[in-house]
């Protein structure tokens, strides 16, 4: 089977999320990486080095600079004439583009796969991960998004794929990019972090969240996450949300502080290796999945913990 992987990148380097997609695609067949962007030579070169990638298609055009789905999807759909499967990461950008590609090809997308079970058979989570479905496609071509935590990351070195130019219809003329507000942080990225410290509604407000959670995260070199309640209340930005409808994480250690453990939150973190929970309610559902639990008032326990580490 010939697979086409949508590379997520910033025009100069390849985003980590792509590496898990390459692993999934390699389980299905030969892997071609599609780098659509503008002045994206750096990203194409990085993609060519990924172990397992046998060819890179570089579509370099101002229309693809911001990754607008209206422009990228027809490009990918056109290239798919020569391929059997299209795979994208289950990131906000992959989720934005892949279903459009599927619709152009008149196939049903298989979202967020956890494993490749056969030629056209995959597992995927449904109902916030409370059930795992095995699904088989009857479509001639496959369109898939891949859950990053479910596959090993392909090595960023070792490949030496040839880079070829590709082109598509360009600008659809229906949408334009206006601006992006992306906070730069010294901390590890949430989906790539080994340790995550997450705070919930109990943290009261943005200032309190920062004064309690950040020092602990600093000590542990951890990324910071949050529950929906903490994000909705404005303690932290939206991209901190872990859960069914936020980010899916699976770090070595996940520390949930003042988070009750609603199913929507568990959906995003229950594959973490070790879960630690601090909550003053001994019956909080988070303790049902925690390896290590501490029943305590976080406002005493967390500063004490931070000092002792």
């Amino acid at each position: 089977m010939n697979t086409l992987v949508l590379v997520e990148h910033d025009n100069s380097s390849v985003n980590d999320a792509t590496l898990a997609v390459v692993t999934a695609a390699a389980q299905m067949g030969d892997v071609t990486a599609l780098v659509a962007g503008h002045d994206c030579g750096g990203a194409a070169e990085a993609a060519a080095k990924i172990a397992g990638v046998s060819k890179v298609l570089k579509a370099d055009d101002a229309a693809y600079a911001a990754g607008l789905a209206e422009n990228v999807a027809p490009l990918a759909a056109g290239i798919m004439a020569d391929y059997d499967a299209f795979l994208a990461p289950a990131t906000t950008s992959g989720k934005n583009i892949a279903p459009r590609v599927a619709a152009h090809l008149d196939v049903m997308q298989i979202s967020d796969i956890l494993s490749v079970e056969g030629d056209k058979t995959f597992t995927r989570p449904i109902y916030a991960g409370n059930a795992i479905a095995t699904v088989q496609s009857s479509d001639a071509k496959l369109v898939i998004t891949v859950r990053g935590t479910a596959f090993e990351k392909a090595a960023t070195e070792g490949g030496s794929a040839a880079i070829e130019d590709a082109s598509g219809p360009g600008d659809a003329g229906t949408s334009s990019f206006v601006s992006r507000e992306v906070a730069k942080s010294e901390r590890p990225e949430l989906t790539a972090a080994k340790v995550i410290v997450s705070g919930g509604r109990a943290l009261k407000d943005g200032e309190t969240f920062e004064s309690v959670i950040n020092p602990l995260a600093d000590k542990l070199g951890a990324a910071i996450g949050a529950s929906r309640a903490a994000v909705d209340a404005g303690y932290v930005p939206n991209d901190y949300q872990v859960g069914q409808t936020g980010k899916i994480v699976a770090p070595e250690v996940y520390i949930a502080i003042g988070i009750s453990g609603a199913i929507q939150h568990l959906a995003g973190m229950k594959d973490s290796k070790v879960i630690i929970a601090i909550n003053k309610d001994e019956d909080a559902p988070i303790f049902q999945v925690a390896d290590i639990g501490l029943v305590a008032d976080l406002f005493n326990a967390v500063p004490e913990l931070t000092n002792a580490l």
Partner: protein
Amino acid sequence: MKILVPVKRVIDYNVKPRVKADGSGVDLANVKMSMNPFDEIAVEEAIRIKEAGKAEEIIAVSVGPAKAQETLRTALAMGADRAILVETDEEIEPLAVAKILKAIAEEEQPGLVLLGKQSISDDSNQTGQMLAALMGRPQGTFANTVEVDGDAVVVKREIDGGLETVKLTMPAIVTTDLRLNEPRYASLPNIMKAKKKQLDAKTPADYGVDIAPRLTTTNVSEPPVRQAGEKVEDVAALVEKIKALGIA
């Protein structure tokens, strides 16, 4: 301008789904069903746009069993003007829903179609994007704010790194994220009024759409269960445990 709002009837978000022992699916018998929470946000946003004088009519659409009427009545009670039920007892996939919605959009000519970003049942996150592609129109997915400005709509989107703003020429498709708004509750008088609002019943065949599934679910199983671990007595004990993990 008309706004089309597709709403799906799903298991209530407070219910913990149970997998059937025979692996055929999730048990929905006698389970509380509600409007998909993201769709409530879409209905609310449509109402706010109308209240701001930028839309005249809100049409709620649901594709599903006869019971999906209840979901449509909820949308009408919140403030939608009329509703269309496209009735089918079959499991229906996002691609087929998108095709039906496209046919309805061709009849109704809405300036905006406002959908949820994701159904909390199948967690597909596809329908809005598919509809946009089928219609050849732009999309503003995972919307955090929506501003109608003449014949364009400016959408601030929740993305992995933060927020992104795009400008779309209408007609456009927008899918809602959690921070877009807080949906209102329907008042009792509005629930009563909603009973008299127009609700048309259709079938997929009326729109000439083949809804035969493309995917076959061969098995549905429980995920591996995580065992609860131990509770430690105090912070000192927690410190020991964390040190033993080698992360501090």
